[in-house]
């Protein structure tokens, strides 16, 4: 079973849900937690991760041999990203615009373009305990997009575990889509405010378009959750769990602690979430 945790927007409690689920489920199941929030991964801050392996994520960048180049401009014409320009005295690659697609070297009539790997980030893999494997991606500062990092991270999905949890980036754009590809279920984390509802509805649009079954976790519940309850009922999406707006939970979070480890009644609640999901995916 592969589950992605998303939120429409940052700060709603995606990390809280991911880490607590991973922790509580690992008591009973073999679990793998993958932090795909590659711009700002946080899950590792809540665990002692025993790092076993790191690997670089590379894209191929073109290098122009300006002695061989005849300045025909075919490469610049073919590039969809404006990342290569042919000037009268040299052809220049703008590295930050390059997607590493390889079109320029493909169309060069004199083979003046070769490609060299450039690291845009890395994958860290390890273990938290015998039942809990961990992986995360980390985008380098200044790089535009983490999609490739997420793609490479997902190649490390262990098909032998019972549950894979993928903590997605916030929002609904392409990195989130990458976190949702080929998974079985989406947990949508929200909070009971007008903003929360607005962003939740964006996330719902996305998972529906991708035909992924989903359920809602309401975080910072003040008892004032009618807004989300009504929406969930209208849209026929189950509410899996409500986490109260509680100073103790907020404090444990701020200290980098998993609250269900300290408030054990929550272990069962998170375990129930998984049972509900299992019932929905079959």
């Amino acid at each position, binding site marked *: 079973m592969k589950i992605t945790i998303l939120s429409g*927007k*940052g700060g709603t409690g995606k990390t809280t849900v991911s880490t607590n689920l991973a922790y509580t489920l690992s008591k009973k199941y073999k679990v793998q937690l993958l932090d795909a929030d590659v711009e700002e991964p946080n899950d590792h801050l809540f665990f002692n991760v025993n790092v076993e392996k790191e690997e670089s994520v590379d894209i191929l960048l073109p290098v122009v041999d300006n002695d061989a180049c005849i300045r025909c401009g075919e490469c610049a014409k073919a590039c969809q990203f404006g990342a290569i320009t042919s000037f009268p005295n040299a052809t220049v690659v703008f590295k930050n615009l390059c997607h590493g697609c390889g079109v320029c070297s493909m169309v060069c009539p004199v083979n003046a373009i070769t490609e060299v790997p450039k690291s845009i980030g890395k994958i860290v893999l390890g273990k938290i305990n015998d039942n809990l494997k961990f992986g995360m991606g980390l985008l380098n500062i200044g790089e535009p997009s983490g999609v490739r990092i997420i793609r490479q991270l997902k190649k490390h999905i262990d098909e032998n575990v019972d549950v894979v949890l993928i903590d997605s980036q916030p929002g609904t754009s392409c990195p989130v889509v990458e976190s949702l590809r080929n998974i079985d279920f989406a947990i949508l984390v929200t909070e009971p405010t007008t*903003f929360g509802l607005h962003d939740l509805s964006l996330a719902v649009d996305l998972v529906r378009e991708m035909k992924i079954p989903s359920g809602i976790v309401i975080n910072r519940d003040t008892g004032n959750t009618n807004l989300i309850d009504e929406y969930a009922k209208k849209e026929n999406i189950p509410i899996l769990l409500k986490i109260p707006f509680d100073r103790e939970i907020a404090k444990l979070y701020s200290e980098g602690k998993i609250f269900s480890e300290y408030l054990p009644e929550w272990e069962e609640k998170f375990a129930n979430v998984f049972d509900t999901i299992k019932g929905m995916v079959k």
Partner: protein
Amino acid sequence: MKQLAIVSGKGGTGKTTLSSSFGALLSPVVLADCDVDAANLNLMFNGKLEEKYDYYGGKKAIIVQNKCDKCGICKKICRFEAISFENEVYEVDQYACEGCNACVIACPQNAISLETALSGEYYYSVIDEQKEIVHANLNPGEETSGGLVAEVRKLALKKAEEKGKDIVLIDGAPGIGCPATSSITATNYVVIVTDPTSSGLHDLKRIVETVRHFRRDFGVVINKYDLNPDVSKQIENYCLSDNIEILGKIPFDELVEKSNLEMKPIVLYENSMAGKAIKEIFEKVMRKLK
């Protein structure tokens, strides 16, 4: 004309609390909500929609099936794993395709073409005589949010010039990737909002590096600093040792929750401790822009 950006590295630290308050205090102003994935600022100001624009982002490859002879060259050449072969048919995954054109060029049957895709919309709304806002909606699953952020900023600048407004306030996109960097390039000053959680400090370091990478002047605001004094201290120590100016600290204030529910910037509540702190930060930032 000055451009001021408010960013946070990560969502949920209180960026909208700060930017809506700055928006309320600034007059005249053009606001640019660059959080195009989940635009919230206009919800706070309830501007009246005046103009709407389509946003065409990247292109996507389309395979014409009756021309395809199933040679598989497109799948082999695509570096984005965007072409799948299932049920004897090659197909482009619209979410994975980056529109690079490699498959179009490589296809021996000329069965593939690139088509422009509608990726979202952006809007110009008027709040009152002194305030306007440019905001946007990116369609779910779109990749070109950095491009849409650029459009939002361009339109905000244009409106500011037309109406003779001196300042554009940018509510930045979260993260450190292309929408976030597209929110801070060529700004005059950047305010970074953080909060005292262990992840807050981790994210702060990454956004600081990013803002430095783009060589912008910046300062840091610690929101809800009294929720965890230990981590707040750690953040202050980090700023001190790294020569980063702390613009101010905002106390935890339950009125903020209320202001979010009532959709009214916190500085408009007279008794708010958080509002008072934000006003002081605002004055300091205005002096930076002079």
